[in-house]
């Protein structure tokens, strides 16, 4: 799993540097990197993915159950974002310049809906139950 962890640390740091280079405060970028690294460390132990260490950087695989959950969560996120955009356009009274702040919150909201749907559809706790 060395290749997996190494690649994910590099990706997390690169994303954080990108955030910093585009205007984020240094500690915000560091926090983003820390959160991403923690998520990547948790993923192989979460029970959500079939783990194939021999595959190196692409060691985690979705199976049919995980893919079905992901598909439903993605649809929920898309619908939530579509409704949010529609509501915003109705409120402002038409297609006008959309402020970038709204787009940022829209994306965060979509990601939030995706993961909330994912956890709810799985019916699980954040920490996997002990094996039976």
């Amino acid at each position, binding site marked *: 799993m060395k290749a997996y962890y190494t690649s994910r640390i590099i990706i997390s740091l690169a994303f954080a540097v990108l955030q910093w280079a585009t205007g984020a405060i240094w500690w915000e970028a560091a926090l983003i990197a820390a959160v991403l690294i923690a998520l990547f460390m948790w993923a192989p132990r979460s*029970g959500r993915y*079939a783990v194939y260490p021999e595959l190196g950087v692409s060691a985690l695989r979705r*199976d049919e*159950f*995980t893919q079905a959950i992901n598909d439903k969560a993605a649809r929920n996120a898309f619908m939530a974002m579509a409704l949010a955009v529609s509501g915003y356009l109705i409120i402002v009274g038409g297609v006008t310049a959309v402020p970038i702040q709204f787009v940022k919150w829209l994306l965060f909201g979509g990601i939030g809906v995706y993961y909330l749907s994912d956890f709810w559809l799985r019916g699980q706790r954040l920490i996997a139950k002990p094996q039976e």
Partner: protein
Amino acid sequence: MKLQNRLKQQRQNRGFTQAELATAVHVTRQTIIAVEKGRFNPSVKLALEIAQALNTPITELFWLDQQENQS
């Protein structure tokens, strides 16, 4: 008609943990949990792979609940 299963019973009878069975059929432990609890219907391929891993006829693992149809 609802798909029923006795996967947990058969798995335990053969000494498999959920993780071991999941590894044997190349799925996640969550998938095995979801199938055992009836929250997810496996594909035909997965059902056959589970039956093969447990060395059990598939009809002893999965069946359709006829009672719902008759009520």
